[in-house]
């Protein structure tokens, strides 16, 4: 028995919404976002559903709570103001609960809070959603070799605090 055309239209509606909606924001960020550099360090796991990837850890993902000037809660969104250093790599200069009105900033979710001794040494760990970079299968070793020769910089596109990873760049040893 033939199925009516509306059944196919209805069946295709939600998958198309998902397939078109999910990439919209990252595409906007990649197209219109500001390009910045972040210092990072990778490790090398394997993902069976997608491809090999490196897990990335950023300098700006572990910050002293003193930059916020108050307490933070796990799960809340904080905004990290950025400023380029002498080599053009971004570093954190402040944390706030409101979006900064000017300059570059990253929106991150608090994933962990740690206190070491004095309150001033408390640290906040933030997740910016850019902790994973997919690489060509079997090239994790090459990246590790490159790491031994120097550090790794992440080229990130940034739009209204939202970040999308574009590529990794090997920083030559000084």
């Amino acid at each position, binding site marked *: 028995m033939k199925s009516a055309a509306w059944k*196919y239209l209805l069946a295709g509606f939600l998958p198309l919404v*998902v397939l078109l909606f999910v*990439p919209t924001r990252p595409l906007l960020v990649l197209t219109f976002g500001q390009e910045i550099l972040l210092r990072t360090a990778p490790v090398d796991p394997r993902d*069976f559903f997608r*491809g090999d*990837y490196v897990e990335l850890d950023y300098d700006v993902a572990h910050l002293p709570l003193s930059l916020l000037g108050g307490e933070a809660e796990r799960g809340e969104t904080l905004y990290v103001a950025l400023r380029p250093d002498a080599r053009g790599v971004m570093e954190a200069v402040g944390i706030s609960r409101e979006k900064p009105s000017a300059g570059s900033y990253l929106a991150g979710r608090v994933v962990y809070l740690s206190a070491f001794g004095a309150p001033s040494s408390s640290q906040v760990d933030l997740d910016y959603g850019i902790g994973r970079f997919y690489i*060509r299968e079997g090239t994790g070793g090459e990246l590790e070799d490159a790491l031994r020769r120097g550090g790794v910089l992440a080229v990130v596109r940034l739009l209204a605090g939202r970040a*999308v990873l574009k590529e990794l760049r090997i920083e030559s040893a000084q």
Partner: protein
Amino acid sequence: MMKPNRGGESVRDDMREGKKISAMRLGLIRRESEEWVESGFIEASQRERIIASYVPGRRVLPRAAVLLGVLMIGLGLLNFVAANWYRITPTWRVSLIVALYLATLGGAFWSDWAERPLVSESLLFFSGFVFLGGIFLISQTFHTEGHYVRALALWMVGFLPTVLLFRSLSSLLTMHVVALFYMGSVLFLSFGGGYGLAGVLSFSLEPVMVLLVLAALTGWFYLLEGGLLRGARTLSAAVSLCLVTGLTAVGVLLARMDLREITMPLFVYLALGMGIRFFGERAEIAGVDSLGLAVTGISGILLTFPFAWGHSFWQEAASETMAYCVAVSVFVGAYLLWLIVRRERQGTFAAFLFCALLVRWYFDFVASFMSKSLFFFTGGLLLILPPLIFGRLRRKKGESSEGGEGSR
């Protein structure tokens, strides 16, 4: 009294007339009835009608192997694409995924209107696979960190209308397996702020997803039984819902015990599944025996992995742990083979689980030294080729014996 045919076959298949019997028995009836005609017991037209009232049942193990093999080749294709499309821009990648999805859905529609229901159903099933692959490939394209469990949830939401509207067995089964895998993942794997079973409590804050899974599972049973066991759908849907909810409750209860290892809960599920299957078969409540088998099969297969015995994913398992894994494999394998040999209505599903068990060991032996796409392609071919070759040989043998009979 003829028993109602309730399991294993698609709702569409069930609409076909004819009682299913093995090809061997059908051959016997053909030969015997020919002699009855020759002896004058019955007319030739009566013989034709008798033979037409039977359909040869398809062999369950080859069918299950082919289904799993096709899935593995699909995964191989997905990985091959993922590993080789770095030169294409993200916009083109998304466009290709959407175009492929539309092509498969459009192809299903066209085949449906061209009176090719089997092609239509296969393309519809493939569209679901493209959709799932598309979610993972988009995630890879933009280097997003999302947990695979969330991707599965997204897929279930998107594919549910297809399952509800078209009621094909392959889609229903896939949705059911993914739903069970999803439930297993969120119950037993580390997820959002906790590890092991303690992580479950953080998941329980997502009741909408749990409800969705329950709705999907209930819908599956409802549709399958609605088509195959007319009149008793409300009872079987209610029993299925109660059992699925009960199994979830057991999972949450075990989680609250904050056990560090998942070995004991998996054994509990293994035993519960066997009990539910036995109860479902005895009480003849459709779908319940399949649910029990699914629970047994999945928990049993999980118990063949060292992580189920407290080993971390990245640590090489001790020989003692591997011995436990092998022992569980032998037990679960023997149980599934017993169900296959009995040729009861869960035979196809049992065969599918048996193939999954074989694939699990194939995974263990070769995954570490093969590229992923090659691993999936080879595994898929290993599953598909034997049934194809043996099927062809069997057909040739059948043709030659038919020819022999004819010349007699």
